[in-house]
């Protein structure tokens, strides 16, 4: 009632890193925008902009920091160019599942490190979504051992790419428009993409028939609402609380939906002739070993990464006993 009525009406532009129609990745951003307006009685209006409408998706960081865009819907994993530590707040190879991850974030010191990191760039960010594990990727040929990985040309982005390079994979960047034709014609042998429900719509099964699980590089992916810090600080306490509440609900919504929709998608992919594989344990072990090397290298070269990595590792060590005992 009264408190909300006094709040200054906020009319912000919110850039999205994902198209509004993209299952989960985009739809959760639209949901965020709608819910903010509903919950605040119209005092918070964050207008959703398609990627590229204001600035290209990967450029929103600088724009929000400069204040030329007010807010952005994205994942911290996109900002590893600014600081590799951001990756640890998005998806960690061989990292925790959503429950364990959120435990670290809210109660294990994650949030404080997160705020500290973003504050350096004049950005306030609120964790605002989590989705199901990704698939490991689409391969044109079956992979039976790590030897089969050697020499493979694979489109891969982010920290996982470093791991892949250690396995002898030739990682490709590729123009966005080239991924599909390149995979179809065999200029690349494989690509990582997203989760089954998304990959189904995008039609990767039409050009590669082998679909691998689990997505060791992304066991769960976190999404956040970035805001220009100066503008955020000027919001009323009520408005800040509304943002926190809506983001909390968005996390629940994303988690629930992500778990609910994969089964049907996988069934449909199978029907379309996709062969679904699980990585053999020894491949996963080797990948894990490579990731530990990469993490150690990053921790040695980047103090911020080390700080966050240590915090996460310590949390996971004390969690382990509960994780082993508590679940079936």
């Amino acid at each position: 009632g009264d408190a909300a009525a006094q709040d200054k009406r906020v009319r912000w532009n919110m850039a999205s890193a994902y198209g509004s129609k993209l299952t989960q990745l985009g739809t959760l951003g639209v949901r965020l925008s709608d819910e903010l307006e509903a919950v605040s009685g119209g005092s918070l209006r964050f207008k959703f902009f398609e990627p590229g409408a204001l600035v290209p998706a990967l450029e929103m960081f600088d724009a929000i920091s400069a204040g030329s865009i007010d807010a952005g819907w994205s994942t911290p994993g996109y900002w590893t160019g600014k600081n590799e530590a951001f990756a640890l707040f998005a998806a960690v190879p061989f990292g925790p599942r959503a429950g364990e991850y959120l435990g670290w974030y809210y109660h294990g010191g994650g949030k404080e490190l997160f705020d500290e990191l973003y504050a350096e760039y004049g950005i306030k960010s609120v964790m605002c979504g989590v989705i199901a594990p990704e698939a490991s990727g689409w391969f044109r040929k079956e992979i039976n051992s790590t030897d089969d990985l050697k020499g493979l040309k694979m489109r891969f982005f982010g920290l996982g790419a470093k791991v892949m390079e250690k396995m002898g994979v030739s990682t490709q960047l590729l123009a966005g428009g080239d991924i599909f034709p390149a995979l179809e014609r065999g200029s690349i042998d494989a690509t990582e993409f997203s989760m089954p429900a998304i990959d189904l719509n995008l039609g990767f099964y039409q050009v590669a028939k082998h679909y691998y699980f689990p997505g060791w590089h992304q066991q769960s992916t976190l999404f956040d609402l970035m805001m220009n810090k100066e503008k955020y600080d000027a919001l009323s306490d009520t408005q800040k609380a509304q943002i926190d509440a809506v983001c909390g609900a968005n996390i629940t919504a994303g988690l629930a939906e992500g778990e609910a929709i994969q089964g049907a998608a996988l069934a449909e992919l199978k029907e379309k002739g996709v062969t679904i594989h699980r990585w053999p344990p020894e491949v996963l072990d080797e990948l894990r070993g490579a990731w530990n090397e990469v993490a150690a290298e990053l921790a040695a070269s980047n103090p911020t990464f080390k700080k966050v990595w240590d915090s996460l590792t310590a949390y996971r060590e004390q969690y382990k006993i509960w994780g082993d005992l508590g679940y079936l």
Partner: protein
Amino acid sequence: MDFYIEDFLPLFMFAALGILLFSGYPVAFILGGIGLAFGFIGMFFDVFSFIQFFNIVPRIWGGIAENLVLTAIPMFIFMGTMLERSGVASDLLHCLQVLLRRVPGGLALSVTLMGTIMAATTGIIGASVVMMTLLALPVMLKRDYNVPLATGTIAASGTLGILIPPSIMLVIMADLLARSVGNLFVAAIIPGFMLAVFYMLYILVLCGFKPKLAPPLPKEEGPDSAGGILLLVVRSFIPPLFLVFLVLGSILFGWATPTEAAGVGGAGAILLAAVNRRLNFSVLKDVLERSALTGGMLFGIFLGATCFSYVFRALGGDDIVIDLVESLGLGSWGLLLMLMAIVFFLGFFFDWIEITLIVLPVFSPIIGALDFGNHVESLEITYWFAILLAVNLQTSFLTPPFGFALFYMKGVAPPEVKIQQIYKGIIPFVLLQLAGLGLIMAFPDIALWLPRVLLN
């Protein structure tokens, strides 16, 4: 309803562009300058702030600079310039003309065919129009072709590239629709080739009735004996054919991505010039410098256009368009036709990507949920709509007075070729494309049949 002038600033941007374009100052800087000016006007009305100009730089950076797809443009321009400078292109076209001596408009037909092949290797209109102009226009002019017919043929076949896969436009559309790129690629094949066939039929009929527009080769020119013709073919036809095979083949055999195929083409053009013994340092330097100037011209327009369309959007231009359509309260066919008309109009001013960003996310779910009865199956409406949009966007590159393809062409054409001739030349081809658009609307299977057969 209150009237606020600041709500209509985006419309004034159209007007300002329409008028100032004809001042004769470079289009690239007019686009940038108008964007800037309206940003300041927006600041005056308190609907824009100075810091919002910052976004222009990340837009340039992420959209134009750090953009791997666009690296194909300078390489294709180089390929075109090198083929032109080394005489390979004119040899090829001469040979085609000899072979097609008895076919009306033989050279124009060859150009259309070349444009169609080129379309299968790139999806960037700037690259294909510039390359086609470099290759074919000088030869056509030397052969006394009617200027509007020559420019129209080149511009129209040059823009086929955005429809015939691979096409970056279809990829971005698929992304915005969260649908399969493969389906869109396959759906675009028949409409793309259908247009190419339309162009050829038109040229055949027109030149059959008015041979003066496309003078056939004089009888005394070129070899007459079968042996002479064979020699000509071997000399001038095989090398460029080899290049086409190299470029297309590198994609089809999975050696190179479509973007990289441009590099294969560039390297191949150097090789052909060397084989023709026309390669030396000064030729290479000259070709590089001319390609750089052409690239500067092309990217100048890209840069100006991103500034213009950003300010348009920041001032609420998208909302004007969306409100306009929604306020009309049209039925399914009315809405579809209205959208097509609006896209056609927007094409005068904007790059396809900006139009796609305005129209596709908002209207594709609305169109997708509409009922077209037995005309289109509801699951396929989205693909059908995307293809209609793609054909329409291709058309709007050509529509006078603001077709971007026409600018690219004007940028590289000899100064004797006037913009009014280019405008005039495009009219029949635009009509053909509209006919194509109408056909796909009337017979959705033109787009939907092939994916149904191939992919399900």
